[in-house]
């Protein structure tokens, strides 16, 4: 198989073909198609004109031949048919017509025969026969004519005989004449010549006899003229019979000639037929050659067209591939190889252009993607920001807004449309919200602010009937118009207010805390000294009374200080896990006593079994305070109810579960302006001197310090409701039997106590107290002195030290050092500061017991005793 060479040639040609531009390729294909079409047209044209020529030849030659031969055949056939008419013509007139007719026919056939050139060859005897026929027919016509005249002559004779017979028939003398006349009339009808001859003989003899017998007889002459003269009746009749015979012969001969003519014509027709056959064969050949030419070229054209279709299909396939790629690209699929990039024709151009286009498209997709994301982000922000947003154009027409805008401005839904003017939008606002207020509370002119908004940044507020305050922040846009941000300030304002309030409370707390601390020290000295003084005075003396009154006043001062501290959340609380219901139940008589009989007290206690961890004394104190406040609000009597219950979602710092204590009255209520301030210390609605103004603030401080919350609800004329929420705790109580702490004061047995106190009055007071309790005391004012004392002596049973010693080194340092150097020596700490401050300021360990200042003698006795006992227990 040496197909290598052709394949190489083919592939070479293929390469050449593929190297051509598409346009060139299509042009070549179309040119070939055009050529093929032209060739078909030419061949068709040629074939058609050949056929046309053949047809016209056919028409020119064959058709006349056919028609002539047909005519010839018909006419020759007719000749024989017409001949008998001639022979049988009844009158000369008819004969004339028929014979003329027949002669015309013969003449026509002769003319026809002469007009057919091939006739001599095909039917040589035709002319001769026709001439013969003509002669015969002429003979026949002449004969017939003669016969007719003869008949007419006979009729004349008969007429004369008839006249003779009629004329003489009645005369008997002339009977012989009449008889002969009748004999003659009979002779005119006889068909047999022999009979005729017999009749003639008889007539001749009869006439001869008649002439001889009666020569002058009338009618004889006439009889003789008819029957015997030249052209007599017998001759005429005989002649007539002969003519009839000859006529028959001529007719037969006419027929015979006609038959021969028909045969001749038949030959000619055969001749014509064969010629026509030849002609039609020629036409058939011409048509067939034209057809086959057209067929060949059509096949060629189809082949070229198929080739063209193949080329176009390939092109379409490549184009389709690029188009599919573009479609897929349009659908977002960019990870595809571009086909046919290496081609050098238009498809290649398209593919390369497509590649560039694809890169551009990908770039555009990326950009538009990021734009879309940004725009989505912006739109999300626009729709979801907490603030309302509106954009007006340079002519004050609304362009865009977000849903929050409608909510914040409380605009009627559905009324807002793009293109609404600023004035129209403002008309939609509630009446009271149409006035603008500057941030410092000054009213602004609406029109002025509307025009200013277009040029400068504007900030102002509007107030709504429901108390909402909306801030407008309007900024002009670079292209004219302005954008405005609407913030609902209500909540922020409330929070700010709350913050301000708590800051105020904090400051108040710090202030009161500081004052109370110093006060405590003062009162501690006063009380201590007064107690010491009381023991030294005569019990019933005036001086003792004075001392007791002073002590009472000092103790009231101490109580006041405690309440201040309580508000400042700096009081020393002694929390216990308690059942509030029980606590309220136990203090009910106290409350009843406090509020007086005019007020009905209701209890609804459902807190159990939930427990709280609070200082029970302070809680009692707080409830009592609230009860007294309520009673004051109900001077004419009313109802005061205490309710407790569970709250599952209190939202306290320590947890959601809380016990609710609700104190509710039917009193006058508190005005809104007052309500914000009721927890401030020294805020009171009572006349000066009637209240301290510390009741509610103390309650507030206590609750807050107990990690709870207090809420007040009140409206003028509808009473007041105070809810206290206290965090629920688990029941960890040790049900130990409370030892009788009210027993005799534990007293010392002359043990040495090292007292460290920088404040001299307090130091002296404490020294005296310890001394009165049976202890021996060495007191120092500083920590250095304490170290000296401890190093000089070793018989101290207890170190009793203030924490705050006014120096860097404090009581806690001392306690630490003592524990290190002299383990077993107990240290009792004291301070006027609350535990939390001690731990934050001095790092007091949790659980460390500190004796709170100011302390009573009993508290001191127990604390010292406990400290000593603990040491003894440990040692033992």
């Amino acid at each position, binding site marked *: 198989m040496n197909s290598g060479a052709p394949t190489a040639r083919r592939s070479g040609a293929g390469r050449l073909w593929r190297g051509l531009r598409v346009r060139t390729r299509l042009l070549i294909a179309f040119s070939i198609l055009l050529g093929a079409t032209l060739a078909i047209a030419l061949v068709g044209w040629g074939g058609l004109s050949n056929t046309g020529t053949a047809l016209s030849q056919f028409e020119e030659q064959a058709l006349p031949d056919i028609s002539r031969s047909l005519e010839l055949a018909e006419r020759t056939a007719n000749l024989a048919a017409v001949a008998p008419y001639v022979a*049988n013509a*009844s*009158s*000369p*007139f*008819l004969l*004339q*017509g028929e014979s003329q007719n027949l002669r015309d026919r013969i003449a026509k056939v002769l003319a026809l025969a002469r007009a057919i050139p091939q006739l001599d060859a095909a039917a040589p005897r035709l002319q001769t026969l026709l001439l013969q026929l003509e002669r015969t027919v002429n003979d026949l016509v002449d004969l017939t*004519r003669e016969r*007719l*005249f003869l*008949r*007419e002559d006979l*009729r*004349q004779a*008969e*007429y*004369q005989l008839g*006249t003779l017979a009629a004329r003489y028939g009645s005369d008997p003398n002339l009977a012989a004449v009449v008889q002969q006349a009748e004999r003659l009339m009979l002779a005119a009808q006889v068909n047999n010549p022999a009979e005729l001859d017999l009749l003639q003989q008889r007539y001749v003899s009869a006439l001869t006899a008649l002439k001889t017998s009666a020569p002058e007889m009338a009618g004889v002459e006439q009889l003789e003229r008819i029957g015997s003269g030249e052209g007599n009746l017998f001759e005429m009749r005989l002649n007539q019979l002969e003519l009839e015979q000859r006529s028959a012969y001529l007719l037969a001969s006419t027929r015979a000639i006609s038959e021969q003519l028909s045969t001749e014509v038949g030959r000619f027709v055969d001749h014509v037929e064969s010629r026509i056959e030849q002609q039609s064969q020629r036409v058939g050949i011409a048509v067939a050659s034209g057809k086959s030419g057209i067929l060949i070229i059509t096949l060629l054209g189809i082949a070229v067209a198929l080739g063209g279709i193949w080329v176009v299909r390939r092109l379409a396939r490549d184009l389709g591939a690029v188009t599919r790629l573009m479609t897929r690209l349009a659908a977002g699929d960019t990870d595809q190889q571009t086909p046919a990039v290496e081609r050098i024709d238009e498809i290649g151009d398209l593919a390369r252009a497509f590649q560039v286009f694809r890169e551009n498209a990908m770039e555009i997709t990326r950009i538009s993607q990021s734009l879309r994301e940004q725009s989505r982000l912006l739109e999300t922000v626009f729709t979801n920001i907490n603030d309302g947003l509106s954009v007006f154009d340079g002519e004050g027409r609304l362009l865009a807004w977000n849903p929050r805008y409608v909510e914040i401005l409380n605009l009627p839904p559905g009324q807002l449309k793009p293109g609404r003017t600023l004035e129209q939008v403002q008309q939609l606002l509630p009446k009271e919200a149409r006035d603008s207020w500057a941030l410092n509370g000054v009213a602004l002119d609406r029109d002025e602010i509307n025009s200013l908004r277009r040029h400068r940044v504007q900030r102002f507020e509007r107030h709504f009937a429901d108390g909402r305050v909306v801030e407008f922040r309007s900024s002009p846009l670079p292209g004219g118009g302005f954008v405005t941000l609407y913030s609902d300030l209500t909540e922020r304002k409330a929070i700010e207010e709350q913050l301000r309030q708590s800051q105020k409370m904090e400051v108040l707390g710090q202030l009161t805390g500081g004052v109370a601390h110093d006060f405590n020290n003062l009162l501690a000295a006063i009380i201590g000294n007064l107690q010491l003084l009381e023991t030294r005075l005569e019990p019933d003396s005036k001086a003792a009374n004075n001392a007791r009154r002073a002590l009472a006043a000092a103790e009231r001062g101490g109580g006041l200080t405690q309440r201040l501290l309580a508000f400042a959340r700096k009081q020393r609380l002694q929390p216990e896990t308690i059942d509030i219901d029980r606590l309220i139940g136990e203090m009910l008589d106290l409350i009843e006593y406090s509020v007086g009989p005019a007020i009905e007290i209701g209890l609804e206690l459902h807190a159990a079994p939930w427990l709280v961890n609070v200082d029970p004394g302070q809680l009692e104190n707080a409830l009592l305070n609230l009860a007294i406040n309520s009673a004051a609000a109900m001077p004419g009597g009313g109802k005061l109810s205490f309710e407790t219950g569970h709250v599952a979602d209190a939202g306290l710092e320590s947890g959601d579960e809380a016990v609710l204590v609700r104190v509710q009255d039917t009193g006058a209520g508190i005005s809104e302006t007052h309500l914000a301030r009721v927890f401030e210390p020294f805020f009171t609605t009572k006349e000066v001197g009637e209240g301290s103004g510390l009741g509610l603030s103390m309650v507030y401080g206590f609750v807050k310090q107990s990690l709870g919350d207090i809420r007040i609800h009140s409206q003028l004329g509808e009473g007041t409701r105070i809810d206290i929420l206290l965090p629920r705790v688990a029941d960890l109580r040790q049900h130990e039997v409370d030892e009788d702490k009210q027993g005799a004061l534990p007293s010392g047995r002359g043990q040495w106590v090292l007292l460290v106190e920088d404040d001299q009055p307090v130091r002296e007071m404490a020294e005296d107290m310890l001394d009165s309790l049976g202890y021996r005391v060495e007191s120092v004012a500083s920590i250095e002195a304490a170290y000296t004392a401890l190093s000089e002596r070793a018989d101290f049973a207890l170190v009793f030290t203030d924490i705050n010693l006014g120096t860097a080194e404090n009581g806690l340092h001392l306690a630490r050092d003592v524990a290190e150097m002299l383990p077993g020596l107990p240290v009792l700490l004291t301070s006027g500061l609350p535990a939390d401050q001690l731990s934050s300021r001095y790092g007091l360990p949790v659980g460390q017991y500190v004796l709170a200042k100011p302390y009573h003698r009993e508290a001191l006795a127990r604390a010292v005793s406990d400290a000593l006992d603990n040491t003894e227990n440990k040692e033992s």
Partner: protein
Amino acid sequence: MNARVALLSLCSLLVLALPVMAGPLSIGVSVSDLGNPYFQRIARAAEQQARLQAGDEVRVQVMSSAYDLERQAAQIDRFIAAGVDLILLSAASYDGLNDAIAKAHEAGIYVIAVDVQAAGADATVTTDNEAAGRLACDYLVRQLNGRGRVVIINGPPVSSVLERVEGCRDRLADEAEIELMSMNQNGGGSFEGGFEKMTHLLTAFPQIDAVFTINDPTALGAEQAANEAKRHDFIIASVDGAPRALQRLPQPGTLLRATAAQFPSRIAKQAIELGLRLVRGETLEQQLWLIPPELITAENVGEFGRW
């Protein structure tokens, strides 16, 4: 009959008034066809009238032309040679005998055209042929109730035939619903011709309602053809009043229903009368003498005798 008696007496009067002549009067009669009874009748009537009006010694020579001009011309020549005084001529053609007639005139012979006109004749006596054609076709129209297909079997192109066909066509043309399908078939005025042409027409037209023939022999030939073809769906009217036609009219199953009768005796009588007047040197007040036809049908055939 009264009419005849009257005529006869009138004739006798005329005979009496006849001037005495040099020799016996000689008359030549040339008719078209002695095979046709009509012409026989004309010839005989002419002979009788001549004898009646001019005496028994009148010589009458009767010849038949067989519609052949040459033969008729020869006959006229023979009349001239025989020295006749008067020729009654049934011309084979209107103007085919000019020379012969002129020769007769030169010989001092008067020529009276009978039955048909002839150019140059001294007088013409014919049936009113147009009226005859109209009469016959009026009968057909009436029988068809003015509606149907009609054919005409024509005859030789002589004036009498042309006028009959003209009269018939005039009458047919008055009827919108009469369809004249053929009028060119020339039956030659003979039985055989009628037979042949009717055969033609029966073949050509599957439906024919009525036939007009130019004379009775043609009509009888046509009827014979119809009988042969077994077609009896039409009627025939004709012109002549020939004895055979009159015989046929009252017969059952006849197709021939009417014929506009000519009166050959009257024609012959009139012609002889006129001829004698001319011979006597009188002048005639008119050249054309028309004898009115009468329609004969089965109803009134009994009122007519033979010609």
